[in-house]
């Protein structure tokens, strides 16, 4: 009886797993692909540019936070904006960029504050999108990262199947919230998300990142700093751009993160959180995403912070 039950349960489960697997390997038939797909172009930029360069990395506060042309003109260094999404997790973001670090490079990391809380630095559902874009990056995934994203796999797979079936049936792309922004073509030649620069501000999405600071993340950053140094490159941390409303709501946590970074970190920190707190009107749609005016201000600020360090 038991054998019978287990046999059929296993066969049934295999059916479900097969369905999930099909979803995972299904191609993306949407002609308007998400910003996750810009990773390929960003990797090409990093690969092609062999001379010493400034690489900006982090989550969406970076991809939505800079006009790299301003930095390039001010610093006389080529600049690549490698960032895409904070949800990939800090571990993945950094290990992805580490594959391309060469001697003389300057890596500037602006992690989102949520990366320091709980196990967020292992990544969440968006990491699955990135692995779909770049399956070869599976080699970067640790057991903890796999555990962190595993709960999203079934839903992710079914959503892919859903989208595939919809696009096939309608024979036209599924409409996204904005076809101009958040696509793989919303990125300029440096890797900055630029198509929103002239858009009207949307309702700001505010965040709460309350919780205990995870010191393991800082230990990880220490090891990253050592690796980058060994490659003959430089590593800096700059705090992310944040709207005043979210900063005020989360000041206690943000200051705790800053304190922990200064206490346990052995890397160079260029600024402090309040240096990149800007008025809400300088943000486009979320607490981290600057609009065109905000991007110019932050780019100039970072350029001046970096100037002294690059001499």
């Amino acid at each position, binding site marked *: *009886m*038991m054998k*019978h*039950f287990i046999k059929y*349960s296993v066969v*049934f489960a295999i*059916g*479900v797993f097969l*369905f999930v697997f099909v979803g995972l390997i299904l191609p993306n038939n949407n002609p308007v692909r998400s910003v996750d797909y810009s990773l390929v172009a960003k990797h090409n930029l990093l690969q092609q540019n062999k001379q010493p360069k400034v690489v900006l990395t982090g989550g969406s506060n970076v991809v939505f936070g800079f006009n790299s042309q301003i930095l390039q003109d001010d610093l006389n260094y080529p600049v690549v904006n490698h960032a895409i999404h904070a949800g990939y997790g800090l571990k993945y973001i950094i290990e992805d960029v580490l594959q391309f670090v060469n001697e003389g490079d300057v890596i500037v990391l602006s992690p989102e504050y949520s990366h320091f809380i709980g196990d967020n630095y292992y990544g969440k559902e968006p990491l699955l999108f990135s692995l779909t874009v770049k399956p070869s990056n599976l080699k970067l995934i640790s057991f903890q990262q796999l555990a962190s994203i*595993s*709960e999203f*796999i*079934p*839903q992710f797979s*079914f959503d892919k199947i*859903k989208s595939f079936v919809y696009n096939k049936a309608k024979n036209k792309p599924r409409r996204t919230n904005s076809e101009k922004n958040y696509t793989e073509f919303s990125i300029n030649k440096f890797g900055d998300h630029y198509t929103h620069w002239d858009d009207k501000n949307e309702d700001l999405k505010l965040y709460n990142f309350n919780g205990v600071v995870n010191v393991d993340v800082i230990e990880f950053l220490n090891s990253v700093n050592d690796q980058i140094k060994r490659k003959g490159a430089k590593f800096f941390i700059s705090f992310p751009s944040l709207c005043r409303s979210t900063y005020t709501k989360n000041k206690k946590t943000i200051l705790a993160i800053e304190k922990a970074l200064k206490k346990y970190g052995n890397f160079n920190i260029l600024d402090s959180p309040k240096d990149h707190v800007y008025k809400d009107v300088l943000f486009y749609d979320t607490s981290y995403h600057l609009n065109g005016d905000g991007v110019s201000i932050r780019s100039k600020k970072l350029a001046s912070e970096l100037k002294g360090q690059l001499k």
Partner: protein
Amino acid sequence: MIFNSIQYLIFLPTVFLLYWFVFNKTIKLQNFLLLVVSYIFYGWWDWRFLSLIIFSSIIDFYCGIFIEKTNQKKDKKKWLTLSMLINLGFLGVFKYFNFFSNSLKEGLLSLGYQIDTLTLDIVLPVGISFYTFQTMSYTIDVYRGQLKPTKDPIAFFSFVSFFPQLVAGPIERATNLLPQFYTKRTFDLEKAKDGLRQILWGLFKKIVIADNCAIIVNEVFDSYTDFNSSTLFIGALFFAFQIYGDFSGYSDIAIGTARLFGFNLMQNFAFPYFSRDIAEFWRKWHISLTTWFRDYVYIPLGGSRGGVWMKVRNTFIIFIVSGFWHGANWTFIIWGLLNALYFLPLLLLNKNRVNTNAIASNSIFVEPKEFIKIILTFFITLIAWIFFRAPNVHSAFSYIKNMISSSIISVPEVSLKPLVFIIVLVIVEWFQRNNKHGLYMNELKMNKFSRWLIYYILIIIIFWFGAEKQEFIYFQF
């Protein structure tokens, strides 16, 4: 750990295999395994609160033994009182302290006295109302002589913390569940298959019905002043199904899981929205709690044996206490009070046991007269649910006031997508109304292919239409 998570998907088969293949030599070993995995299951939220369960278990284990040992009624009562004080004390501190403190402060303020009261900055331990009631039932039954106290601590601790029903019930009676920990459990294929079906149906109710309704309900209740009457009605309707899908879904998963391990838990919901009056509704909704209050509060108070005054008093006590059990907020007390008011006329007219027969037992369709009764009963429960969901009493009254206006016949301003799922649920459960759950198939003559097709379709529906994961509502109680 929650039932609708990948962790549970790994946890359940692992425990199942260990239980039947590794720890199957003796009952003691199986009980030990259940105890360990139950603590892991609970500790997944916050391991610190395990100490409360362990402490509560130790107290009740020894109180049971001492109650039996002593021959003096007075001493027996002492041990029972100790157990009650500790269990209710935990509830009082963790769940009700801030409520009483703030109510005292507000009450005195309304009389012109301003005082600073102490409030505790503490988190409510998940499931505290469920397991304290379960363990209290044990000491009460031992005190009454209805149950022999156990001398087996592992069996008792496993009974208190049994993971399928630990955090949101059904609140099992010691007389039903505890003896199952002493007897050899054998694997029953039909029971296990039906258990899996019940789990699947529970997941459907939680993920498709409750979680989809929750999105609209939160939107409507959070800014109810911005919506027209029809939208407010939809908000209340969806909440009625959200709470049903959420809670009965949890119970289905709990009962189904227990069956995989050879345990029988009591039925907690018996398709309550098909009730023809409020008395029938309360015989079918959260049965384990309703019967708990009936056996341990209502009957000891005299039940409905005394005169009219006693009947009225006991009815109000039972419903208000039941409301208060749900949470430390006046909204729950009003919810209980309202249900008492609904129930009272039936009790006074001796009509509270009129509808004990199965509904439309020989027909697919219900008679028009019964249909009207069902709709009316549903409508009055829906009004009561508004108090249950609203953040405070004032909001609940404003919500109802805004709901009753001419715009009740206007087009709702929110998505009606969950209505499709609700219709599916109602149809399926109507056909299954005389069975134990919505996916009961034991007596259906269906081949394997058709059954498997139904399971796969249901799984696809769950993933395809399932909404963003929401925590089970009853965890907060």
